[in-house]
């Protein structure tokens, strides 16, 4: 296999305003499509991330790995980029013979962290009612004009978007995080 290291869309760019925005890619990401009740799904997600099957709209964490619920038949598994191939193998093994799709989408995504004051930053870009968000919720939404997903961790947040619009989303987040503009 290859010995080259992939690079993220913005190569670790960061911005500091009233909070810090950072490109934290590349992260390993696997998109799994399967019905929640299909045999082997819990084993597959467990093997890939150490997490249980995430309940509706939730994202579960186990160390560096996360498992998020994306739709009634779609899950997003996140892990260090070096673990993707092994995780795909583990999923294939656990779900052998069961109808499913698991594909490496690491390169299709950009990932940003908002170090603090995340609600203020995201409330300027996303029609999200933060008071209605449950703890551990993975919110699929939009940031201004593009699709995105995020989850909160206390006052911080992690934002996932498509790689092609990484610069746009970084610029949006930076605009919303400009010093002195906190809501």
């Amino acid at each position, binding site marked *: *296999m*290859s*010995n*080259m*290291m*992939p*690079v*993220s*869309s913005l190569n670790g760019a960061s911005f500091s305003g009233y909070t810090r925005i950072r490109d934290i890619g*590349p992260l390993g990401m696997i*998109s799994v*499509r*399967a019905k929640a009740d299909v045999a082997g799904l819990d084993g597959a997600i467990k093997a890939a991330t150490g997490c249980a099957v995430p309940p509706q709209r939730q994202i579960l964490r186990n160390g560096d790995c996360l498992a998020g619920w994306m739709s009634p*038949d779609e899950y997003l598994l996140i892990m260090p*980029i070096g673990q993707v191939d092994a995780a795909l193998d583990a999923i294939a093994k656990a779900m052998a013979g069961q*109808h*499913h*799709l698991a*594909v*490496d*989408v*690491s*390169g*299709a*995504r950009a990932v940003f962290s908002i170090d603090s004051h995340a609600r203020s930053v995201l*409330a*300027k*870009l*996303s*029609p*999200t*009612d933060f*008071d*209605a968000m449950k703890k551990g919720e993975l919110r699929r939404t939009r940031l*201004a*004009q*593009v699709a995105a997903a995020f989850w909160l961790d206390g006052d911080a947040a992690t934002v996932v978007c*498509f*790689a*092609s*619009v*990484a*610069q*746009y989303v970084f*610029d*949006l987040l930076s*605009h*919303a995080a*400009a*010093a*002195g*503009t906190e*809501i």
Partner: protein
Amino acid sequence: MSARLKTHGRLIDRNAPQRFTFNGRAMIGYAGDTLASALLANDQMLMGRSFKYHRPRGVVGSGAEEPNALVNLGTGATAEPNQRATQTELFDGLQARSQNHWPSLNFDIGILNNYAARFLPAGFYYKTFIHPRAAWKHVFEPIIRQSAGLGPAPTARDADRYEQAYGFCDVLVVGGGIAGLQSALVAAQSGAKVILLEQSPHFGGRAPVDGDVIDGKPAEEWVNTALETLLSLPNVTLRNRCTAVGVYDHGYVLAGERLTDHAPNAELPRQRLWRIRAARTITATGAIERGLSFAGNDIPGVMLASALRDYVVNYGVSAGDRTVLVTNNDDAYLTAIALHEAGLSVPVILDARPSADGPLPSRARSLGLRIETGRGIARVLGGKAVTGVETCLVAGEGAVLEKIDCDAVAMSGGFSPVVHLYSHCGGKVVWDEGAAMFRPDPDRPPWGADGAGMVIAAGAANGHLDAAAALEDAAKAGARAATETGHKVKATKAAKAEARGDSPLTPVWIMPQGAPPKLRAKMWLDYQNDVKVSDVQLAAREGYESVEHTKRYTTLGMATDQGKLSNINGLAVLAESLHKDIPAVGTTTFRPPYTPITLGTLAGEARGEIFQPLRRTPIHAAHEAASAYFEPVGLWRRPYTFPHMGENHAQAVSREVKNTRANVGLLDASTLGKIMVKGPDAGRFLDMLYTGVMSSLPVGKCRYGLMCNEQGFLSDDGVVARLSEDTFLCHTTSGGADRIHAWMEDWLQCEWWDWQVYTANVTEAYAQIAVVGPKARDVLNALGGMDVSREALPFMGWVEGTLGGFPVRIYRISFSGELSYEIATPAGHGMGLWQALSQAGEDFGMMPYGTEALHVMRAEKGFIMIGDETDGTIIPQDLNLSWAISKKKADYLGKRGQMRNHLASEDRWKLAGFETLDGSVIPDGAYILAEGLNANGQGNTQGRVTSTYHSPTLGRGIAMGLIRGGLDRLGDVVAFTNLAGAPIKARVVDPVFYDKEGTRQDV
């Protein structure tokens, strides 16, 4: 003369002078002033000229209703026209200029229109500009454009920052007066999540000015306590300087927050657009005083009684030493009392009612003020300023009883509840005969998604003008909103105000009621658009019965203030002229925004670099470094060509084509859509989606396919690779990826939900690079790591491996007709692979090429392009692609559509190639001429060009196009339209211009 008083001014800080300029003249105001109050303090009553007649105008109101005092603020990149001086907070360094005058505010040529007023009646535009026809363009329009209009649009790019924000709440309270505060308190203390918006910098509204007493305390004290309570509650958000401008379906409310208008700071956003989703909205928006229609009511110095009071109490500013008050209600007496207490003179109070014995008139009388009942103003004297009034009997025809010197007139025709927000989304109003006002109809509110009314009016906005009634109503509104949003209302004690016990008003729509035409022609209804009583009456005489038609005919209420002062007076005059009741005439439609909102605020962050998302491939930076010229492809930016120094684009494209055909070229094809389709039914699914058969494709092979919509029209095309027994990778066009993915999911989720198929759009997971040309194999071999020989990787096959250290999947597919490898690698390796290939290709003369070279090369090969050869009306058969349509399959999407007689007709325009006889290039969009004329007398056509290029390979113009008869017409010479000259003759030829046998791609 207007001036600053030594006393009063609860909102200003006399220790903080603020320097500003008006028309270049330096002036000084205080912190807390509005621009209007500061101008008055500097004896600048004249603030603008009217729209049509250029009459001198002064400030009339003190808030959002102001029609006259509109100014240009700032200069250059921060210029903003049509700003209301009454709502503009003064700051040090403010620059304001008056509008709509030439050459100067004091001396304006346009005033000539005033003297020609009898030639500029209602409907003037419609009547005058019909004949002669030519005069519109050359005479009328230039003159109107010069003389009409408000402030000039800024010419420089807006230098300010803007942003948007989303808010959510159970109860949105609009208006921070005592009613809004009371509603918010009740709702919040019941546990509802509350957002309270106040358009001005200060909460409390009119109550502190009017001297209301609440819970035994002055209103201001109660307001402060209420604010403290609200601020202490975690479920309450208070925003001042934030105007709710529109209410929309599903409880959606837009509000504009002015963040730094009052303290400019280039680093911070100037304004913020709030997009609020509220389960219930309470409109505690107060009421706006109406003027009275008497002759000369627009002369600077004639103001609303409430505004005059505001200026004295809030800003310590008097409009003049001697103020005549004219009213039809008790409330206005507060102004006379306030003026008297400020040491100013009120020579007379003209009360249109037969008697005035309520508590306030009695108090005024006890202060020694002269009250004349049954009297009104016949005429205001003065030009650029009020010098006096002539009084008359309200019931008469305007015979002058007395001439009274004064320098200001305070007028009050009653109050109109601000029902705008209640009405925006369909809420209706009812006419309250006793109070002579339209108030929200509680039985016909704007309906919310839950089937119940989503907007609740409260306080004065609900017609409860008295503080006591307003507070009671507001508490009820707050409780109702809380209950309806699922909260249990706590039995909190609502605040109690002392009832004032006003006597009822008497509606007065024209003063005096029998005024002759001469007076009526000087009674202004709509100051901003210069609409007079006589105009509305003329419209009625000319047959306008609908208030909506009259509005448009006379322009009543169509200015930037949307007739906040004029609408009710105007429709009352119309009703009178039509001998109808006011409710039978009705109101015009209230539409958002309540007050104008800057376009920059609506755009928010969407400007400059983030005006719209720009999609970049993983290799984008390399193209920028190579000075590529980009073109938009959907939201992608793709290199159109890579010009060398001194080359124009045509030359660069020509070089790229020739080099690719002779040596090797490199193309970033990452934008190509890539959709993974997996499952036991994947083959069956693709057989339905594509016109051809995909289920028979062997693993390791690729096949070209066409997708049609249900109607049979060609929708997308691309190469499908079978990755494993149950997995396919479908390539789509660059612009089609998201659409086709959604199309697949639509069929899987809605129609064939029991088929076992999953899809994943992996377009961006991979960078894809095409290495194209006779030396392509040499370049890949130089990188090494994989066998890419014809035997190991034949045409239309694919292999996976490691190329030069990069994990890749290589497809032997060709869109150029040359030996071609399309190499997919995970996106994170895209840039690395591009650089490695560029380096490896140096020895083979490799150059990158852009989308234009790609297009030229595919056209030379006769390959179709979705969007060029197709336009949503083209079926594959039109493009001679019947070979890609399976005859064996029972069904595919589009099959039945293609059987409809029009699509199955032999007479359709079909694809052919075209070679111009003189070698020139056929213009884009050209039609093929046919004999005769059609029913409209236009020349007939028999086809059109779809792709047309100069072919560097052949050294001549080539084209593809559709022509009746298609390839049956081979050899015919036809004529293409040419806007630049004579029609261009071209011969119908085979659309494959280059390497017809296809040997070059299969080596």
